[in-house]
């Protein structure tokens, strides 16, 4: 494979991050905020996996692998860790939103703001 024009996968990760930033800055709904964070974590995961790709590489697993170079294993391990961490964070955030909804009856971050400061 030749050079991809303009580092396309990195640009894709950057655009995904941009969309998630847009959601986090402008959306008021707490569930949408959580979706923004989930998208940002996807952007980071995509970025990490793209870092480890080697042109024409195989998966770094020796079981029945064809000849050729292998892609880097460390970014894949990091991505695996990062995915699980994000699952954990999302589970906890959703739990808290469920509790907030139970207490205030609303998912709007402006309305449910009891605390001022």
């Amino acid at each position: 494979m030749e050079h991809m024009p303009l580092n396309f996968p990195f640009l894709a990760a950057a655009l995904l991050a941009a969309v998630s930033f847009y959601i986090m800055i402008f959306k008021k709904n707490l569930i949408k905020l959580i979706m923004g964070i989930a998208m940002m974590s996807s952007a980071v995961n995509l970025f990490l996996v793209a870092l480890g790709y080697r042109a024409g590489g195989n998966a770094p697993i020796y079981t029945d692998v064809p000849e050729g170079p292998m892609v880097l294993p460390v970014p894949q391990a990091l991505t695996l860790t990062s995915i699980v961490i994000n699952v954990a964070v999302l589970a906890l955030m959703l739990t808290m939103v469920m509790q907030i909804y139970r207490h205030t009856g609303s998912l709007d971050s402006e309305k449910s703001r009891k605390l001022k400061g």
Partner: protein
Amino acid sequence: MRRVVGLILWLVLVAFLVWGALLIHPFGYPPSDMDDYMIENAQEETGNNNVVASVVFDYRGFDTLGEATILFTAVTGVLLLLRTLKRGEGDS
């Protein structure tokens, strides 16, 4: 006012992200000292055919312990927050 500030902030962020994406090494040609060592020696040192598994559980096993801990933390946290309050309604 808030929207304008947010929009400016967002545009700055996007500019930085795109700029960063263009500056990073060409896709498919990463520097790879540490990873080459792992690809070459994983089978001999850890006895694994799967290099990713040997990175996850051996070379960087401590990260995986931390990751399992995070999952444990989150599960404990979720069960803590969704617990029943039937007993002990007293003052904190």
